[in-house]
């Protein structure tokens, strides 16, 4: 057993309002630079949709993450991008690299013209100017969130890879204008346990920090071989076309090290984000991804360890994990959502990178359904009983199949379990607060949701009324000790505290 601590996250999708505040908080701090304009370390996409970069989930196109091969009955993970020799053979040209057109050409506007234009009969305009070439762009053809709120859905939403397995009728229903349904999917780097970006990097420049599991790219070791961009199935590594280096979400480690949550967490308007540490068994990583797709979520859960178990605590201490870190693991909201309540699911477990950002799937667009006749069928509205809520899953507005493709590697039962529990929590609260659910009905809901009144109350509390301290349990990183080991404190004292002391731009 090799217990390690991992900074982990939960996003509660029912609470995301799609405001993009998180994206802008991140952009203003980290990627408002030349070469990084197009990078959205945090982005929020509309689902159904093709996301950012376009069709990132299509691994036949981009070859991110891991495959499993069957070797004499034993499943073995294999990097989907290429083998080790393949990496060297393809190094002069990476066939699977997304290009700027799969994102968009970053632009600004010629604002100066509004002030400086000579007098004329027409109003001056601010034309779009490419931030790469400095030339005017006549027609902007793509941009961040080009398909926000289903814009251009006949092109974007209709080609969502997660629609695989849905019947023609289901697809048509989803796209029909009066019955349309969508939700938001905010994404950052998942700081995976079996990261595809790390594995694909020929230079070995990408690494996981042992203490907290944050995945970083050493800007000094990166040589611009640009394999990581393909290796990450979530397309959360971006290539800086100006510096010739790859960059990615750093989980705001300078903030985390000083006890603050990452900026996107802090600024989240819907308060959908939870941050905390998980303990996991690093010896079982390979085992956890060497299972068939439908078992992946279970296997992922199983390597996350109980921070209250004395044996685990002992093993953790043995591996140098501090008591303060174990304490943080015990208070972690992520532990509750993911392991205790089994509500948090990994995004696209079938990519097999063991992502450590978990999602509580959204219920809102799922439960109410619009019938063929255009009637809005909120489950339970027809009669005075709310019972139909429980049976309405199979006629969900966004088919369970779709959610399963996103959050359970296709295993519909896993998603249905989550929904049954979420519904139970709702019925329980309805009974408490409105009082129109009979005790019987509530009891049945709790049983179907495999939960208890206490648990439902706790889920409600952490979902709807958590304090700041409950949402964000920042693990103690002991930065002081860490630095003392690597840098002479007297030297550190006179530095900025950040790694780079020179501007990240091309000098040679």
């Amino acid at each position, binding site marked *: 057993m090799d217990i*390690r601590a991992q900074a982990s996250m939960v996003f509660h999708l029912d609470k995301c309002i799609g405001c993009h505040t998180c994206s802008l908080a991140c952009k203003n701090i980290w990627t408002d630079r030349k070469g990084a304009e197009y990078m959205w370390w945090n982005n929020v996409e509309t689902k159904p949709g093709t996301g950012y970069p376009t069709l990132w989930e299509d691994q036949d196109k981009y070859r991110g993450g891991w495959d499993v091969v069957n070797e004499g009955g034993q499943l073995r993970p294999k*990097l989907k991008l290429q083998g*080790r*020799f393949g*990496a*060297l053979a393809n*190094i*002069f*040209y*990476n*066939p699977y*690299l*997304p*290009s*700027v057109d799969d994102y968009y*050409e970053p632009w600004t506007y010629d604002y100066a013209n509004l002030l400086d234009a000579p007098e004329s009969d027409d109003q001056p305009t601010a034309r779009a100017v490419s931030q*790469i*070439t400095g*030339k005017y762009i006549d027609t902007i053809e793509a941009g961040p969130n080009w398909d926000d709120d289903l814009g251009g859905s006949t092109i974007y939403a209709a080609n969502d890879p997660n629609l695989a397995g849905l019947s023609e009728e289901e697809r048509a229903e989803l796209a029909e204008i009066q019955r349309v349904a969508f939700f938001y999917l905010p994404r950052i780097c998942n700081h995976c346990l079996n*990261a595809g970006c*790390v*594995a694909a*990097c*020929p*230079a*070995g420049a*990408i*690494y*996981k*920090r*042992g*203490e907290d599991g944050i995945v970083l790219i050493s*800007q*000094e*070791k*990166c*040589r*611009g*071989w*640009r394999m990581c961009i393909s290796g990450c199935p979530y397309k959360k590594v971006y*290539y800086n*076309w*100006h*510096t*010739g*280096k790859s960059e990615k979400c750093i989980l705001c480690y300078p903030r985390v090290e000083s006890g603050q949550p990452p900026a996107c967490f802090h600024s989240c308007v819907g308060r959908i984000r939870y941050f905390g540490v998980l303990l996991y068994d690093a010896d079982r990583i390979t085992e956890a991804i060497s299972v068939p797709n439908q078992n992946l979520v279970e296997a992922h859960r199983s390597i996350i360890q109980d921070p209250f178990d004395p044996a685990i605590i002992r093993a953790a201490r*043995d*591996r*140098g*994990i501090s008591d303060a870190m174990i304490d943080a693991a015990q208070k972690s909201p992520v532990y509750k959502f993911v392991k205790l309540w089994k509500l948090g699911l990994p995004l696209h477990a079938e990519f097999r990178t063991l992502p450590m950002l978990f999602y509580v799937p959204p219920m809102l667009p799922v439960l109410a359904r619009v019938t063929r006749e255009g009637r809005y069928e909120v489950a339970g509205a027809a009669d005075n009983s709310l019972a139909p809520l429980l049976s309405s899953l199979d006629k969900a507005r966004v088919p369970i199949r779709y959610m399963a493709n996103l959050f359970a590697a296709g295993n519909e039962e896993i998603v249905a379990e989550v929904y049954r529990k979420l519904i139970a929590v709702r019925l329980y609260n309805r009974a408490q607060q409105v009082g129109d659910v009979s005790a019987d009905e509530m009891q049945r809901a709790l049983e179907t949701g495999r939960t208890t009144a206490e648990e439902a109350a706790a889920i409600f509390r952490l979902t709807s009324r958590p304090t700041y301290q409950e949402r964000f349990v920042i693990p103690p990183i002991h930065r002081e*000790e*860490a630095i003392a*080991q*690597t840098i002479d404190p007297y030297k550190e004292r006179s530095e900025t505290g950040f790694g*780079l002391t*020179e501007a*990240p731009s*091309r*000098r*040679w």
Partner: protein
Amino acid sequence: MLDTVLFVVFPYVAVALAVAVGLLRYYKDRFSFSSQSSEFLEKRELFWGSVPWHYGVVIILIAHLLAFLFPGLWGALVADPIRLYTLEIIGLALALLTIVGMVMLIARRIQRPRVFSVTTTLDWVLLVTLLAQVVLGFWVALMFRWGSDWYIRTAVPWLRSLVLLQPDIRFITALPWIVKLHMLGGFVLVALFPFTRLVHIFTVPVTYLWRPYQVVIWNRRPGPSGRRS
């Protein structure tokens, strides 16, 4: 006199520059070590440029190096006419590849505004020098046949004399000027190396062949059992 400056003084200056500036750059500005890939900005033409260019130039360079390091073995290899012809044909084909590749790369940088905008003056100098060098090499191979044979009796002893710090240019003074230009070009590139993206050659990631897939870095030792993984 000119020969001494070009083929004794200049090579030493070039190598000194390459080593000194190269090391300085490595230790003072490691951030600048990058292939400066532009594939993100343009893919299709890069394929037709970069792939022929690299496969051509890497193999040719290795051949130059092998003949220099093991002239005896190389001599035995080309002693047989069949092997000599095969080698020369392969060499010519590879040289052609590099020319096609480099022409593509340069044309691409001129024509594609996105790539043009990330090209520095030194990039242009380097690309043009490289093109000149491979064209010269091709010309020499075509016009002065059996270079794989006479190379080990002219350039190799001269280069060895430079390495042994007993410079002796007699081996090459009588060569045609075009051959000498190709030799000079080699050292111009050595001199350019530390100032340009050519530094990427020295960071070829061979360790990828055996390193573990996952990289974990600890600040402190992770406990008494001491395993660092």
